[in-house]
């Protein structure tokens, strides 16, 4: 295993742990994106550029947007419910 691969693997482990430990979903979306980037680096270091490309497009473009939109909708509902209870 080369140094680059070892560093990439360590980065994946670190980013993955951080993503699990972050509890706020909004922040978690961003750490998830960074985690996807480290995975991309790992795949690239392991000479799998096709997989790396798939990983980067899904983890940094595909998933976060849907999660962000869903999160916004949920917050909207929560806010509406709070207003109803205040009345």
């Amino acid at each position, binding site marked *: *295993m080369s140094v680059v*691969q070892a560093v990439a693997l360590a980065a994946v482990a670190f980013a993955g742990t951080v993503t699990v430990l972050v509890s706020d979903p909004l922040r978690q979306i961003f750490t998830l994106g960074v985690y996807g980037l480290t995975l991309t680096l790992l795949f690239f270091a*392991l000479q799998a*550029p*096709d*997989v*790396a*490309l*798939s990983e980067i*497009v*899904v983890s940094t*473009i*595909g998933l976060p*947007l*849907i999660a962000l*939109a*869903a999160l*916004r*909708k949920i917050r*909207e509902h929560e806010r*509406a419910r709070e207003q109803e209870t205040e009345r």
Partner: protein
Amino acid sequence: MSRPARLALFALAGPGLLAVLLVGFAGLPAFGDYHGVYGLVVDGVELGERHATDMVTALNFDLRAFDTLGEEYLLFASVVGVVVLLRALRDEREEDTEHDTGASSQHVFEGASDALRASSLVLVPMLIALGVYLVIHGALTPGGGFQGGVVLAAGPIALLVAGRYLAMKRFAPQWALEALEALGAGGYALLGVGGLVFAGDYLKNFLPLGIPGHLLSAGLMPLNSIAVGLEVTGAFLLVWSEFLDQALLVRRAAES
């Protein structure tokens, strides 16, 4: 289950999992130490008989092209499912996008600075160029229809980052996305029928192979890649715009 109980369970299960993983990793063959026959066969057949230089794309669009057809329709079906689920419900209505005037109709985010907006707009043509490159060079270099399709879909999304959701909706209207999606899915299936007619087998190559490494080579693969690219672009943009419609435009009728 309480937090201490969960932690105790993890303290028990965690080291066990770690031990099993370590034993498993220790038994792995060294990186690059490949003894299979399949890979060698793929390398020989796909370069020699199909003139493709990227073996992963060659696998997806030639050796297991029929599986790719299944995957494409899997995506198609899930997108249709999302669209059916997220369309405006009976007690909801979309904000009237036609008659709004001024900044509110553009949905300019309060936090979107001029610098962010300018750089997002620069990103749009670059993303589209990269996406097109990835799609049409699928058989030559890493990439292909799926990756290129998502990058293409990210082009209009850069407009959203610039805070101009409704401009994005005009740039990529719903009917165009639905047409892209249908064209991609139907196109791939029809290419397969072409194989049936001209070569005797569904999805079998029936086009001239060209010179390996040239843009127009590898027979059917560039066309398959383009079909998948269109389908994926349409699919991602449709799902995003359905989600974003729900999040940004749809209000419950009682609120308005």
